[in-house]
């Protein structure tokens, strides 16, 4: 199960190639080298050098909420070519807690993951999972679901936990408002997120080892987004996330906010679109200029027997696959597809959890190879053709293309055939 050691090699090549290298502040443990930019769309292919290895972008980052990726070992994840994955600060802060993880040499040591980790701020989970949470200028106040104790998650506390976790990329605590809310609360949250960003920057004990990303807020209001972008880009943070989206808003609003954000974000810093992971969304948002993505969907849906394929998904548990002796995707190179048939996986779902692991591996492999193909096409200057082929394969006919995707792509000069 030896993993391809792309890491070291790519770091070297990024050092030797001077052409497009843009230096960040001297202390930032992050370097972004733009390898290629699509001449038609806003897409770009980069080498993102982080403390544990270099990440090729655009990249999809699988989510390992509790310090583990749903039944997959770190060796398996590594051999799928994963260079960065997520951990959740809220969950890990509760159990096993920052002190213990610090004793285990950070989350890397605790889960024995040799490559990069990104941790969220914990704010999103708090607002979405914990009912009794109250947001004030101080932070998010909530009752622990484990012992009922009242806890305050302040920007300082969030960064302190993330410092203990030792992630390569930390996220600022932001004031999260549902993307379907509008009005003064959105504006308040945007301004507060800026103030909290400054507190997070000040609280970071390891700026030489851990990168703190800002999160652009402003809901679906273009004015607020622009204001937030203007303020936050004044700060010398190593990267930016586009937040407050992917929460049930209209796709038409979603893509407009994404493209507005990338328009105003500095070219030489990575852009991370939070919570996005459906294949079509990934391809479109790469075209809009985003570099990094994460989503629980591919691994969550795997446990229900849904395998992702270039034409959508295969619901392995459905009866129609009981006697289907081909692999999930005959063209897929993952360990599952190389060995097992839909029929066997269908049967195994009735007998053992290993069935879920097989689909999880396939889905992670699908997401990662999709992003590798996207990247390859950008490097080779044929991303626009890639999009055409991708869309044709994903949808039965042109009239099934989602209109938001058609519009979004048209905004970056791609007319779908």
């Amino acid at each position, binding site marked *: *199960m030896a993993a391809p050691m792309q890491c070291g090699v790519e770091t070297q090549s990024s050092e030797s190639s001077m052409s497009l290298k843009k230096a960040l502040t001297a202390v930032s443990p992050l370097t972004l080298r733009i390898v290629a930019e699509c001449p038609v769309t806003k897409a770009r292919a980069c080498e993102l050098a982080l403390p544990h290895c270099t990440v090729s972008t655009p990249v999809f980052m699988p989510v390992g909420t*509790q*310090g*583990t*990726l*749903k*039944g*997959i*070992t*770190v*060796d*398996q994840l590594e*051999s799928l070519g994963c260079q960065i994955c997520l951990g959740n600060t809220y*969950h890990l802060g509760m*159990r*096993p807690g920052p002190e*213990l993880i610090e*004793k*285990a040499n950070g989350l890397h040591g*605790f*889960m*024995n993951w040799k490559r990069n980790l990104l941790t969220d701020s914990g704010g999103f989970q708090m607002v979405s999972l914990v009912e009794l949470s109250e947001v004030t200028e101080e932070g998010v106040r909530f009752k622990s679901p484990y012992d009922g104790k009242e806890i305050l998650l302040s920007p300082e506390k969030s960064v302190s936990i993330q410092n203990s976790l030792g992630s390569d990329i930390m996220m600022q605590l932001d004031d999260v408002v549902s993307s379907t809310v509008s009005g003064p609360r959105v504006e308040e949250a945007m301004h507060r997120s800026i103030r909290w960003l400054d507190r997070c920057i000040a609280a970071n004990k390891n700026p030489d080892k851990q990168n703190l990303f800002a999160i652009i807020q402003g809901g679906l209001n273009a004015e607020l987004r622009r204001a937030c972008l203007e303020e936050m880009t004044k700060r010398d943070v190593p990267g930016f996330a586009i937040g407050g989206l992917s929460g049930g808003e209209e796709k038409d609003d979603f893509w407009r906010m994404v493209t507005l954000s990338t328009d105003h974000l500095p070219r030489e810093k990575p852009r991370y679109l939070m919570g996005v992971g459906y294949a079509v969304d990934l391809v479109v948002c790469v075209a809009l200029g985003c570099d990094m993505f994460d989503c629980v969907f591919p691994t969550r849906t795997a446990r229900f027997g849904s395998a992702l394929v270039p034409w959508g998904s295969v619901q392995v548990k459905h009866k129609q696959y*009981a*006697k289907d*002796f081909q692999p999930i995707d005959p063209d897929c190179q993952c*360990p*599952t597809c190389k*060995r*097992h*048939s839909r*029929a*066997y996986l269908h*049967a*195994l779902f*009735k*007998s*053992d*959890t*290993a*069935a*879920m*692991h*097989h689909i999880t*591996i396939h889905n992670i492999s699908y997401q990662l190879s999709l992003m590798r193909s996207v990247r390859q096409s950008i490097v080779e200057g044929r991303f626009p053709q890639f999009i055409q082929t991708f869309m044709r394969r994903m949808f039965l006919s042109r009239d099934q293309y989602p209109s938001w995707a058609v519009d979004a792509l048209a905004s970056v000069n791609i007319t779908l055939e």
Partner: protein
Amino acid sequence: MHLELTRVVQGSGRLGVLRGLSRTRPHHSLETPGCLLYTHLGSVPHLTQDTLHTLKDLPSVTQVTLSDIAEHQEVLESFKEGFRKFAGLHDTVLYCSLHDPAALCPAGYTTNKTVSVWGSGGRMELTVTKFMSLQKCTQPDWYTSMADGETWQVNTTRKRVRKSVDRTLAHLDECLLLHHKLPELEEVSVFGVVEGGDIVDERLRSARETAKRPVVGFCLDGFQTGFMEPSVRAQLIAAVTEELPEDKPRLLPGVGRPDEVLACVEAGVDVFEGFFPFQVTERGCALCFRFDVTPDPESAGRAPPAVLELNKEEEVVRNGNVNRDDQTQMTPFEINLKDKRYEDDFGPLVKGCGCYSCQNHQRAYLHHLLVTNELLAGVLLMIHNTSHYLGFFKALRAALASDQLELLKRRVMEAGGRESD
């Protein structure tokens, strides 16, 4: 199939190699005493092929059960190429048993002509014809013939035991008759099933009669953990194996605890089912008993370790509290990683263990995975427990070869697992 015995010591077991396990895989062999690879529908529980093959020296024989397979008969019939290929297993010998040793099998569903198995969709009744049509589409290398093993309940009468022996012999004859008519099973071997409950003369009759049939080995049924008192079992097994030809293997289903394995090896058993590590995994535990027989300088200065209180356990059985549910309870051979004491224990599951889990992870991490109900807990525990259990069998064979079985028994009985270091 034939058993090459390299060493036989009366009353302390036989050491050998089982060869010719499969005509299509002539180089595969199984060292005995040994265990089979336990699976759910051909997959070792929780594991994919990648995680399974982090383990070295896996048993060359994989066990599948009709309770898993029966509901997929139609699928296998349209697949046509046998279960091994269906399950993506390439290089293994396939053994097909009737029941899953780790699953409960309710009583009261056996008739003169049928036995029942329980799959994910519930109970399925098998006649000999149905049983053989399942073997035909499974195409294992060997299987045990259909048997009525319902003699384990308290107060089973002599009459019922006799009936079980008669039925099982009749089933065997019918299976063999059909077997020889099926060209698909030409290369396949049959194990005969020895029944007889706890009645010596019925056991002997069953053994003698089964041995007269063209079977390659014997499955000693009805001795499953919890079915009878261990000392009674050992005496009965010893009596039965006396009657069986030396050169044919004896398989004991449903016994997996290391102490019981040792006792049954002494009574003459060669092959066990490998389900015990799975049961330990399901209760969130890690096997940690010792089986090293070379003196360990590190522990030499320690106080003598506590010895298992076997008497207490026997009492439970004698009180008639024979319950297969007992199999879900922790044994002294394991530690419970959910226990808070392991929360900040940064040591491996077992010091010196070479398995993937111990080489890469710590008890504290396993504790965390268990309390957060994460799927990886089952994966890592299953890897370690399987590795530990296979190590035990290897040590058992080495001890037989070097006359150190007594020492091994003492070592295994030490409650070493209770130490948290």
